[in-house]
């Protein structure tokens, strides 16, 4: 890793300032993605701004929304009774991210800021129509994800919390990449006040996306059977050594049906 300045501010404003003052500065959350990148010399930040001192952890219920602060770890989400009663699918999703070490360090903010095309959380955020709350604004999920590893965030903008409207029921079905165990195909299905929502991660060639055809079918009948004949265009799929586009397109259907069956 290259040398860098290390800052650990105690207030969000100071963190934003530190990031704004230096175009090459980067935020550090759990470090599960960022530290390996540094170790492999794939990034050369001049300064690293550690977000651990900003008091950004915690989970709360706010009316019909579940609000999770950015530095909340996957383990905290997985173990939270608040999450389990409001959106059990989210706790389930978090409990299957990476391994124990990753879940103890990795954060929801870090995952969403990174927007890895095979990360799990983006599908939940998109399917549930969550709002990303940042140091300067509120961003709707639909506007937030902008393709692989790309988001609406400005370089000096921090995610502070994520607000999830509580659905009627929801479930996440993940087919893990055999090697990395990230989502090779992950489908988050929710029955919400606004209708059925289906978001797919891991599979798309442009990152997380909503599956309009499946949503339409589920609006007719929220059953696995309703999805039987819904296909996913191969042209939208990513292909790699683990799964070609045809297999991924097929798995989107399988995982979506399994998610519908698991909804609670």
């Amino acid at each position, binding site marked *: 890793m290259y040398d860098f300045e290390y800052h650990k501010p105690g207030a969000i404003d100071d963190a934003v300032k530190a990031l704004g003052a230096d175009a090459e500065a980067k935020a550090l959350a759990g470090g599960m993605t960022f530290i390996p990148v540094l170790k*492999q010399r794939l990034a050369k930040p001049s300064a690293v701004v550690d977000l651990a001192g900003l008091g950004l952890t915690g989970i709360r219920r706010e009316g019909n929304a579940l609000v999770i602060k950015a530095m909340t770890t996957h383990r905290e989400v997985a173990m939270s009774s608040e999450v389990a009663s409001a959106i059990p699918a989210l706790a389930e999703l978090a409990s299957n991210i990476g391994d124990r070490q990753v879940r103890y360090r990795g954060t929801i903010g870090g995952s969403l800021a990174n927007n890895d095309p095979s990360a799990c959380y983006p599908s939940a955020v998109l399917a549930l129509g969550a709002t990303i709350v940042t140091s300067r604004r509120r961003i709707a999920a639909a506007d937030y994800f902008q393709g692989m590893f790309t988001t609406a965030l400005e370089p000096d903008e921090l995610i502070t919390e994520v607000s999830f409207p509580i659905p009627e029921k929801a479930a996440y079905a993940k087919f893990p990449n*055999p*090697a*990395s165990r990230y989502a090779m195909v992950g489908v988050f299905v929710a029955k919400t006040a606004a209708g059925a929502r289906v978001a797919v991660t891991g599979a798309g060639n442009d990152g997380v996306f909503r599956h309009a055809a499946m949503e339409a079918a589920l609006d007719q009948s929220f059953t696995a059977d309703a999805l039987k004949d819904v296909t996913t265009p191969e042209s939208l799929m990513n292909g790699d*050594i*683990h799964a*070609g586009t045809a*297999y991924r397109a*097929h798995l989107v259907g*399988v995982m979506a049906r399994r998610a519908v069956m698991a909804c609670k």
Partner: protein
Amino acid sequence: MNDMSNPVIIKGGIGDSPKRTEDHRFLSGKGRYTDDINRPGQAYAYFKRSDVAHGVIKSIDTTAAAAMPGVVAIYTGEDIAKAGIGGVPCGWQLHSKDGSPMVEPPHPILAQGKVRYVGDAIAMVIAETTEQAKDAAEALVIDIETLPAVSEMRAATAPGAALVHDAAAGNICFDWHIGDKAAVDAAFATAFKIAKIDVVNNRLIPNPMEPRAAIGDFDQSSGEHTLYTTSQNPHVIRLLMGAFVLQIPEHKLRVVAPDVGGGFGAKIFHYIEEAAVTWAAAKLNRPVKWTCERGEAFITDAHGRDHITHAELAMAEDGKFLGLRVNTMANMGAYLSTFAPSVPTYLSATLLAGVYTTPAIYGEVKAIFTNTVPVDAYRGAGRPETTFLLERLVDVAAKEMGMDRVAIRRRNFIPIDAYPYQTPVALMYDSGNHEATLARCMEIADWNGFEARRAAAAQRGKLRGIGMSTYLEACGIAPSAVAGALGARAGLYEVANVRVHPTGSVTVFTGTHSHGQGHETTFAQLVADQLGVPFESVEVVHGDTAKIPFGMGTYGSRSLAVGGSAMVKAMDKIIAKGKKIAAHLMEAAVDDIEFKDGKFTVTGTDKSKSFAEIAITAYVPHNYPIEEVEPGLDETAFYDPKNFTYPGGCHICEVEIDPETGVVQLIAFTAVDDIGRVINPMIVHGQVHGGVTQGIGQALLEHAIYDETGQLLSGSLMDYTMPRADNIVNIHVGTESTMCTHNPLGAKGVGEVGAIGSPPAVINAVVDALRDYGVTHVDMPATAQKIWSIINAGINAGAPRMAAE
């Protein structure tokens, strides 16, 4: 000495399962690995490696890099050439069918003229810290003209393919054969039916938990060089590096291989980094340390397997095998690694008889250079390749004949009364009982109850399959004269020095090396049992050429069969000497002294002396036969095996396939192996568990994949699938032993059986699960995508497909 067939198990002796002595140190973080060693004033080396698979080095400008902070020295291939340093040698020479020697291109320790694979070392940068060395490496100005690359054997042997080495026309290293072609042709002419198969033995990346590391050190006052390295065989490294690369005589070169965190073959070989740091340390008069990173290990540790084979089996009307014809291409990678030529040939094709009486066998092997990491022995080395081929072919043959898979095996087994059995491909098997391991394994696995389980699985929408492999392998390498005749450039005996101390405790110095196998425990049990001393008073020392007389190290499941036999020989000498001392003390004839349970007794009397009394007498020789017997009790033995050893057995695997996703779920795995004498059953179980897990990894998960430009696509653990706990099941392990007839222990070896026997059992189960789809073969790894494609193709075709893959 205790009778080894004695079923009485002494605490800490043969047959007992004391906890492993070494584990406390390993599990409490107190292991001392190469990277834990730091020498005063040490500098750090970083290797700048090629990121293209094939290219001409036009120029390397080190000026800017040399001026970077902390840089001590930068060396390139040119400096190495100027210093007159040789390349790393190949330890095995083969000859082609036409008698010509294999093409053996030089393998310089830093690339000269050309780079030949992604990972080929271009320059060694030495600095005060690793980070500084990396900074400087980035400042190197390297101009490489990229050439077309060949990463796959079919591409490498296509007309007009780019040449990895100009000296190897068609990229062929050698074109070798074994067996009697005419006899095989004659057998095929009379065949009732012929079974055919094409198999790919997937390329693997070993991934021991501890990455490689090396520290070069030089003592200016004595002129002694020391290399600390992650090696399975320090004496072999001393020999190869000292004699062939750096021209340092043995008495000025010490090689230390301390605790080593797994090897699996990848740490047998002499690697360029070892020579580079040893040379640089002397040149700079300063210790130089290099520690490999995981990503670097993927592109520098020798890979395993990577064979493509076509085979045909001729059968008589009753299902008897008449003749076997096998044609293999074996990937050598870009350079010949230490034992690479032996793997597809003498460690593989010589086993084509398997456990069957096939009277005529002919095998051909073409070794191919490609622009990939060198390929060499990996747990099983050649035997998993042949076993996979044979055991798949036998299943195909059963189908071809309309015979039951078990029945066709039984029909062709080498019967127990045919031992010793001379195969048509050089080897003479000494012992085995294939019916016993088969019957026991079928019983534990409830083979006969399978169809009911399959039907129950079908109710749940799952495809259930069962598969077996009845295998035999050759290990305990090897009789030196035989190995030499076959091309080995070294002897393959083993050495033990048994040092009895004055108070009766014992230190055993062994030329084998433990890197996870538990030798410190097993060997201590052997010595405790034979000398009748407590297990706790035996210390096992390995891994240092300054302490151990000599040795060939650990690979090919040889440590107990060869190294343990050397210990028995050394202990025989100790006991013979002890008898003379005892005879003197008890005023009896030497012939009247017997040694048993740690006591020297005058036969037929109650007069006896304990082992400790004899030891103290040997070192305090006041009342002593000093005219005839030297003081001291310290003996060394070299043991050269009389034959290979032949472990074998039966593995049965049961799987379920989810037809919707193609996921193969392991349901049960049973291994019943004949490994000869068992010293520590717990360690044996552990070895089988580990080997089977690696075999399951090969069968279902692992695959090193290069793209056509020679970039490794599965270049990290994010893309290369190692088996994890949830990929395997509880493995039932049983042993049904016949004794090796030609070594004093009766031991055959257990290190590799798991990895050898298991892959075809898994794939036979997968093929069986897909039987309704008309599938006859599935290549490894049987990934979910591959299985889904097979099922999906069947569904889309509207009818079961005839063959897949």
